[in-house]
């Protein structure tokens, strides 16, 4: 006969089966916690400055002569949440392709960082921005105006990528 010898009855010893001593231990644990210093902070007043490894909202790198992105759409392809929409167009610059439209739907984005990982131009990187507040669905779709961030502000992340990617 197939007898299971790992039932609750077999696993627990007498005191455990009584519950009470274990309950007392548990209560003791929480009681001790009550006198410790809180770990949380008073958010809007005390802010947290993330380090380079933090994956906040994805942004596009803006250099002096415009965006790095060449609208290859690889980020859009790899994005597991289908958050990115890119529309390419032609320019007369040496890199003949650029995004006329680049939109990230922040309601879809799951901050996985795949877009950053796949980008052949290091044009999309995860920023430190974690404060995303929208009052309607349309606002949550960020266009190039909100996505392009000067490269100077992204140094921490770029340095992190250089070292660990």
């Amino acid at each position, binding site marked *: 006969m197939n007898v299971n010898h790992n039932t609750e009855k077999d696993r627990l010893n007498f005191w455990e089966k009584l*519950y*009470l001593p274990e*309950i007392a231990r*548990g*209560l003791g*644990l*929480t*009681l001790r*916690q*009550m*006198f*410790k*210093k*809180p*770990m*949380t902070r*008073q958010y809007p007043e005390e802010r947290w400055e993330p380090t380079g490894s933090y994956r906040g909202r994805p942004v596009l790198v803006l250099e002096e002569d415009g965006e790095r992105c060449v609208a290859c759409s690889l980020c859009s392809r790899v994005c597991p949440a289908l958050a990115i929409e890119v529309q390419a167009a032609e320019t007369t610059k040496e890199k003949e392709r650029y995004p006329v439209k680049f939109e990230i739907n922040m309601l879809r984005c799951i901050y996985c960082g795949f877009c950053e990982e796949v980008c052949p131009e290091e044009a999309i990187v995860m920023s430190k921005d974690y404060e995303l507040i929208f009052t309607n669905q349309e606002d949550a779709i960020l266009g190039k105006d909100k996505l392009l961030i000067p490269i100077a502000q992204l140094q921490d992340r770029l340095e992190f990528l250089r070292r660990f990617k």
Partner: protein
Amino acid sequence: MSPLLTDILILLAKVFLIVNGLLMAAAYLVYFERKISAWAHNRIGPNRVGPLGLFQSFADVFKLYLKEDIIPTLADKKLHFIAPIISIGVAMAVYAVIPFGDSFMVGGKEVFMSVAPGVNIGLLFVFAMSSVGVYGITLAGWSSNNKYSLLGGLRSAAQMISYELSMGLSIIGVLMIAGSLDLTQIVHAQAGGKWNIFLQPLAFIIFLVASFAETNRTPFDLPEAEPELVGGYHTEYSGMKFGLFFLAEYANMVTASAMMVLLFLGGWEMPGLYEALALPAGSPLVALVQFGVFAAKLVPILFFFIWVRWSLPRFRYDQLMNLGWKVMLPLALANIVITGIVMTLLKHYGIM
């Protein structure tokens, strides 16, 4: 003023005090529930509304009032409406017989520290009323026409019946000692430090555990069990109707704690205190002190309720039933038998 009018006025004043006092108590219980949980989690807890967040509960109630009251299309509308009223109504009605102290004299008139004094079946009334409370929850689960609500309602019914039994049996020892169902009598029987917690420790533990189950508090909050049942019987409730269930839960918690104080912790009795103060008997001051003593005993129990909630996980349903029927019930019966034997022996040898 005719004596009748005076009586009615006094009665109304008492009702007013109790109802409001109870609501305030419930509001602050919620506040402390949140604070204590925060401490247990190394958090800060509500601290934005008023100093130290003391007005948080009022903000919550205000919010609940403003929220849309949703009635599911397929719900049984009447029952859906009545269920929370039953819950809160019953939770409050219980306080009619709960005494907070002895009577005192004002202007030659005896004023009792309870709404309905001298009810000689006070204890039975409390039990009867809290059984009716099940209806509120079960009807809420049934009328919502939602499978989670229904499961919550059914669980609640089964759980209440199972634990009411052990609860009722556990206090028989106490009644045997006091020889009365009147709560004031029971308190008086414990005068001079003869608290039932010392005489009936097993009964106390059974009563304590059963109270947790009766009030649907963790570790016995299976009727609402958020992870499995969304919100159990109140899944389909919103706005102030939900608020009523919420208040009822805390009111029940206060009831259960008050019952523990009255039955096991000697109520407002405190050996030596009154003698030391030497206040004139029957003065309102005495009543005040008695109420203070009562409250002082109540608060730690309430804290215990909250503390347990943030320490223990929920029981599994089979564990719940095993505990109720296979452990608590036999123990409660054994307690009666032992109490009976001991009392007979004591009588026989003339010690009592």
